[in-house]
């Protein structure tokens, strides 16, 4: 029997998800043994044309990481959707937009202007910007179009499964790989479309071992300003922890190491908007009723929007900041 075909692709991402796959240690050999890896730009030398030459649905499973930031990302998302039976948004960028998605707090024009004109290390008196097409004697050279708004994978193509995390934890990847192999080998039914794989339904707080006393706070502190109690909930000590608004499944690694949850697994099941859920959670611990007092306390959060939406802005309810010229 021919081996099932596996593709991995990175769109707008850092490469951490690829490393997470390699971090599955010996499991990666099992993956390479069970599957025929047909496309994996990070690790193997296949070209886009190799994928274009495939039949529709020829790839059994594509693990797609990275956000959709430019026309090349979009082109590959479409291509891999067409060629794959199962397309999985792998990692926070593909699932929710993640760090590249923070660009939705600004515009493409502002980014290009800073990079090519305003940044202190730039010398560009003629204000030259990259053009998407440029004619040379040999023909026309082209580069991808840079989008104004970063999208997550499900906003541009149909996605079958989602595996969140920045990156997805190797332990969880191993379990998902085992499940996939079991399904393919033994003909087990696939989970329902849209299932979130390799993560919990509930919030990170659910697997956090710290004691929650439902204590309220008068002000937020930054982690370096206090020596946090190792046993007690970080949020109750005034450290902004995204745990209440974040999907569990990572094993609460950060909070166990004394670092507040940053929210990389995205919103929990049945939560649409991570920032809005965090607003609710914060309201629950504030020891203040007066709006101006509340404003003063939340003004103590450095970069509230960047913190609340660090991993999920493109997939949030409002998707981007409205930047008026």
């Amino acid at each position: 029997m021919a081996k099932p075909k596996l593709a991995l692709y990175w769109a707008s991402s850092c490469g951490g998800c690829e490393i997470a796959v390699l971090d599955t240690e010996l499991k990666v050999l099992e993956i390479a043994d069970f599957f025929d890896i047909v496309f994996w730009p990070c690790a193997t030398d296949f070209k886009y044309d190799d994928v274009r030459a495939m039949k529709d649905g020829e790839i059994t499973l594509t693990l797609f990481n990275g956000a959709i930031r430019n026309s090349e990302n979009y082109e590959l998302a479409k291509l891999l959707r067409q060629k794959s039976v199962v397309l999985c948004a792998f990692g926070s960028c593909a699932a929710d937009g993640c760090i590249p998605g923070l660009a939705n707090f600004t515009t493409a024009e502002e980014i290009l202007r800073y990079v090519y004109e305003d940044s202190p290390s730039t010398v560009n008196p003629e204000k030259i910007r990259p053009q998407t097409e440029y004619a040379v004697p040999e023909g026309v050279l082209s580069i991808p179009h840079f989008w104004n708004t970063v999208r997550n994978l499900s906003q541009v193509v149909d996605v079958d499964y989602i595996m969140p995390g920045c990156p997805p934890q190797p332990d969880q990847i191993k379990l998902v790989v085992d499940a996939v192999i079991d399904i393919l080998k033994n003909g087990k039914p696939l989970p329902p479309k849209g299932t979130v794989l390799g993560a919990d339904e509930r919030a990170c707080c659910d697997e956090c071992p710290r004691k929650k006393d439902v204590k309220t706070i008068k002000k937020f502190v930054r982690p370096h300003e206090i020596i946090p109690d190792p046993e007690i909930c970080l949020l109750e000590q005034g450290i902004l922890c995204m745990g209440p608004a974040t999907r569990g499944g990572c094993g609460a690694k950060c909070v166990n190491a004394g670092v507040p949850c940053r929210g990389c697994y995205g919103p929990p099941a049945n939560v649409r908007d991570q920032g809005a859920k965090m607003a609710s959670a914060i309201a629950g611990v504030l020891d203040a009723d007066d709006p101006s007092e509340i404003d003063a306390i939340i003004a103590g959060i450095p970069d509230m929007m960047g913190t609340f939406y660090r991993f999920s802005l493109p997939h949030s309810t409002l998707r981007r900041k409205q930047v008026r010229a």
Partner: protein
Amino acid sequence: MSFEPRLVGFLCNWCSYTGADLAGTARMKYPPNMRVIRVMCSGRVDPNFILEALAHGADGVLVLGCHPGDCHYAEGNYKCRKRLPITKRLVEGMGIEPQRVRLEWVSASEASRFSEVVTEFTEQIRVLGPLKLEDWTFDRAAADAQLEHN
């Protein structure tokens, strides 16, 4: 055509919705711009309800609840009172005027106050103008056209 604000109102069942009802039976006048959604308590209003309303075409969102101390569930309106300032900061952080979101207390007997609040809020949003979200939807045709060119 002149701009007619499209407003969403979340009204608590026990005070504000009854107050709105009274305004109706008393034949008081107020602008018809607000679509009322009855909730059991202003404490039921998840901040995301407000964001969803703005994302899907509302120009402003009004949350009405019982006066402090009058909540049918003792403390629901206190929860709402804590959430709203943070929600307004979220809305502001998304580049939308925070004045488009407002929390007011209207009791079951305050029909005239209800009509005043709705009138005033409608006028405020009328001055602010329509909320037009730029680049919210994914323009597939434009994205596909870029692929044709390259």
